[in-house]
């Protein structure tokens, strides 16, 4: 029987008096690729922010059956759920390689161990086009390259669940296709995927299932 990788129960997220997500409940099975879709400003990203502990939430989140503490990103990362955030949130002055390397921080503090690790090597190998740019400052890379670095940083954390927020935002069509190819490859290799997308059409080329979000309310399809 397939395990539940992520269980979200009655999740609500508010910013001051503004309720962004109201009572969202859904599960994602291990090995599944799940899309969270809906128009912009309806609370898709806030669901991921609440689930990954980047903002405080009400309601419950379980990662492989373990209840996640509120607003504890480190706990979430250590338990195998990693966020690739909207707008990438890279470290612009650090090299692309260092950005990816810091993905390992949640499971080791040793730079030698991180450099020799399988997750780091795999993350770099998935993007051969980044190889000539690994020593370049991340802030000077193109939008597509930065998105690849952000995904590679996520992979270096050795995630069991990778949550990717708007991976194609602002990218040219050819680059967006390449990003989706890599996400499909990551999924093939056994990682559970959660992809937030405004456009359900693109998301459903990759995902088996989608959670539709309208006005902060989530519904399964």
């Amino acid at each position, binding site marked *: 029987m397939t395990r539940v990788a992520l269980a979200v129960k009655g999740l609500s997220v508010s910013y001051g008096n503004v309720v962004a997500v109201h009572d969202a409940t859904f599960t994602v099975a291990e090995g599944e690729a799940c899309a969270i879709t809906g128009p912009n400003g309806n609370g898709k990203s806030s669901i991921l922010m609440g689930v990954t502990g980047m903002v405080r939430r009400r309601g419950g989140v379980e990662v492989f059956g373990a209840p996640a503490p509120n607003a504890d990103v480190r706990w979430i990362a250590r338990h195998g759920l990693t966020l690739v*955030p909207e707008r990438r949130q890279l470290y612009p002055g650090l090299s692309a390689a260092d950005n990816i390397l810091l993905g390992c921080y949640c499971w080791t503090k040793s730079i030698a161990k991180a450099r020799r690790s399988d997750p780091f090597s795999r993350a770099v190998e998935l993007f051969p086009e980044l190889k000539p740019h690994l020593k370049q400052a991340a802030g000077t890379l193109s939008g597509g390259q930065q998105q690849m670095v952000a995904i590679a940083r996520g992979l270096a954390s050795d995630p069991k669940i990778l949550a990717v927020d708007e991976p194609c935002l602002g990218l040219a069509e050819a680059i967006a296709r390449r990003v989706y190819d890599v996400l499909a490859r990551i999924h093939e290799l056994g990682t559970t995927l959660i992809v937030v997308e405004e456009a359900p059409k693109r998301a459903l080329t990759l995902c088996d299932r989608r959670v539709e979000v309208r006005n902060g309310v989530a519904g399964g399809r």
Partner: protein
Amino acid sequence: MKFGNLVIAGIVTGSIYAVFAVCVSVWYRVSNILNLAVGDFAMVGALGVDNLYRVRGLPLPAAIITTLAVVAVFAYAYDIVVLRIAQDGPRRAEGIVVTFFFTFALSFFIDGVAKMLFGTDVHAAPALWNGQALSVANLHIERAGILVLGCAVIIGGMFWLYIRYTLGGKALEACGENPIGARIAGIDTRRYRRLIFVGTAVIAALFGIVESPITGYTYLSGATISLTGFLAAAYGGFRKPGRALLAGLFIGILEALLGGYVSAEYGDTVMYAILAALVLAWPRGLGFESAVSG
């Protein structure tokens, strides 16, 4: 040889400013707070060791260790009690209040306590390396100056190695580059804020102990050191420790040359006029605009 001796004196003073500027810059990168109390920790180091050794009769190593430990515990407590509530609590303070106020208040608090404990006279920690100034080809350098330079090089080198070759150092840089991105990678930005605050307080106290035999300290000396370290850090936009280091050295040498050639009395006034002119001439080049706009 006057010029050479002034430059040497300037490098010694400048290395202190440089270290303090790096302390201010590094902590600002992590916390977005400007440490205006860093010089006061130096003053506590100097006057604390003097008090424990000369007045209370403790052996010198015990006086130094006790003083550094008190500074570390106090800085840790201040972070836990004040800065944690100010920055991490549900009613966190924003903007200029948190950037300046909490360390400005801390500076006044430390000065007040130091006045009560150590009085208002000039004191200094005992010299760690006794003897006459060393001379080579008419160039003179105080032994304490050599210790100051040595400490600056060792601490600067260790810090550079930490940033360059450890994952913890890169995580520290990541906190400064993008705190949200750092949290996503599981980096505890609050832990780094605490670590660097305590670390820089101890480093400042150590420099106070080593340097005070050259200049002597009163309970008010910390503010001047903080101001110069703050200025040097500003030249790096508060975010570039390398540039802050060079600015610290530059200010130290400029101060010595102006004191030697222009006027011992008005040297500082002329120096601040030159520094202000530089900022007016190249605000962007010196990083001021990026500091203001974040």
